[in-house]
């Protein structure tokens, strides 16, 4: 899922948007009509109730990154755009998984959970629900380790990120 070549294509763009009805639809519709690919999306309120944060992972194969940023900047409700180079950012997402727990696999599963630093949030006689937050690659590895046990259901969120300290994470006003 996250081969190195694909990772380099995936830039995380975070948008500070006005907290108004329909703003997410405007962003999504822009991507759709311009033919830009969204790899993942995360939306949440910010500490300032006037604004929300949209974190979009864009595939820069579909269009040059600068063109995508310039078109997003024209959306009136987008107040600020920050683009994160995957090499110079802390990027995280969250994974929740329910996995089968069999008597013979019990120990291996517990080791995998412990090795990844995941949290067990629920358990029953024959299943376990675990939570892991972290870098996408760590989540990929964890999901791969869980797979042999039999995954009942897995959900992952969109990515969020912050620039590395001292790095040139750049923000610019929309408009």
């Amino acid at each position: 899922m996250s081969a190195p070549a694909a990772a380099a294509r995936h830039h995380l763009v975070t948008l500070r948007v006005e907290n108004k009805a329909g703003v997410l639809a405007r962003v999504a519709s822009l991507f759709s009509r311009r033919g830009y690919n969204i790899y993942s999306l995360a939306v949440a309120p910010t500490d300032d109730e006037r604004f929300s944060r949209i974190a979009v992972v864009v595939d820069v194969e579909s269009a040059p990154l600068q063109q995508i940023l310039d078109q997003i900047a024209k959306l009136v409700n987008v107040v600020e755009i920050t683009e994160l180079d995957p090499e110079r950012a802390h990027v995280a997402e969250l994974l929740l998984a329910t996995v089968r727990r069999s008597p013979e696999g019990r120990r291996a599963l517990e080791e995998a959970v412990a090795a990844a630093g995941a949290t067990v949030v629920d358990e029953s006689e024959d299943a376990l629900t675990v939570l892991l937050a972290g870098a996408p690659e760590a989540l990929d590895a964890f999901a791969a380790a869980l797979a042999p046990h039999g995954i009942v259901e897995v959900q992952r969120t969109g990515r969020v990120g912050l620039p590395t300290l001292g790095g040139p994470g750049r923000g610019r006003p929309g408009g």
Partner: protein
Amino acid sequence: MELTGAQALIKSLETEGVEVVFGLPGGAILPVYDPIIDSSIRHILVRHEQGAGHAAEGYAQATGRPGVAMVTSGPGATNIMTPLANAYMDSVPLVVVTGQVATTAIGTDAFQEVDTTGITAGVTKHNWLVTDAADIPRTVAEAFHVATTGRPGPVVIDLPKDVANATMRWYWDDEVDLPGYVLPGAPDPQVLEAAAELVAASRRPVCYVGGGVVKAGASEALARFVECTGMPVVTTLMARGAFPDSDRRCLGMPGMHGSYTAVTALQRADLLVAFGARFDDRVTGKVAAFAPGAKVIHVDVDRAELGKVRRPDVAIAADCRVAIEALTARLEARRQADPASLSPERLAPWWAQLDEWRRRFPLVYERDAEGPLKPQLVVERLREATPDDTILVAGVGQHQMWASQFWRFDHPRTWINSGGLGTMGYAVPAAIGAKVGRPDRMVWAIDGDGCFQMTAQELVTASAERIPVKVAILNNAYLGMVRQWQHMFYEERYSEVYLSPDLPDYVRWAEAMGCIGLRVSTPEEVTPAIEKANEIDDRPVVIDFRTDSMEQVFPMVPAGAANDDIVVHPSQVAPR
């Protein structure tokens, strides 16, 4: 002062200086139509909402002020989608007010409900669904600000009926607070210097002028730039008139049906100075083969246009007038410092080449041909017989290309047409809007018979409102441009393009709509009919010019082909 939302809307429009609204009432917008009775705003009742939108566009294109249209919810809103899309493509400032079902009914599939802000999002600069009457003045101020500043464009204010009926306390604030809407500032001096350097170094420059120059009111600045640099100019379909055709430095229109010299000058140039142009596919032809040897200076108020199609060597995101003036000032300073740096001699070989192309490949048609009336002759005679500042409006198709090619445009805002979207039926309502905006000017529409049938009903509006527009139908009995493509690219297999010259009877139709109707079939009748039309100033006039069905538009760069593969008129020998 307590007002209803409807009263606040009308008062807000008055405060914005709106003089005229094109519209058609219906259920959801009914509350707003009541205070219109008492308003200073002139309301023009169209016969179809598409007519309201295009008339507002024509008004905006002719005056430079925003056009305003008002329609009801549901089908009223969907019928004005085409004008919104047209205005979005051609950067026309348009404010459209749509009625909406009551906020309590939104989302219930109520009678005449559509998701107006949802379906117009892709064809507007921005739109607003007003959910509180207290927001109305602020929203109107924001709407006009967004529509008219930066790269102009259409906006929609969607007003639910209960909000129009609610009361609010009136206020007005000229300041708008849109933190996400930032306009470009003055160009960076270093970037301007880099541009000046390229201009001074070039020996085969072309100034590629787009509609942004007209929008920015930058024609005078452009004239000074050209005076300073001695550079040839091409004016795109959206920019005809931005630089005078009668100036010898104007090479005419580039693009699919551009003049040979304009097209080829771009191809052979070592520098393109693009002002307010967007490297549209109808100009570039095959992008990879467009102007292969040229460096590019690209000035546009919309930063997203810089590099969208062609990577510029120098990119300037700025208002065209500001940027052109600043660039010219730098070039003037260079010339003062070094008089040889911009000497006319540096471009002498280039001009010799351009003049040679102009001599060999002028725009031509069979002027003295026996037989059916040539459409180009009608355009030329119309130009000769009308005042210099006549506003010419066109629809889309062959007639539009002939109008653009054979008219002589000497002033900005004298040419109004649908460029980007290619909207058939644009001419009649847009001409009405132009005449409303510029009652002092003569307004002629050149229309095709196919186009005319799409929106002719607005001539009823023109007659009822005493708006004396004049319409020249180049009636070749075909969807002519489609026919031309079938002729050239589909082995003359003509599929669904024949319309008949007599059905409808355009003269009787015109008269039924309260216009004077005339018919012309021979070259001798052309000028007398135009002169007769020009004398009529109390009602619209329609002239049915019966023109040659076989005539085609040349030159032509076939779709997707390189501009070097331009096909000239059959009477002209190809250069290679």
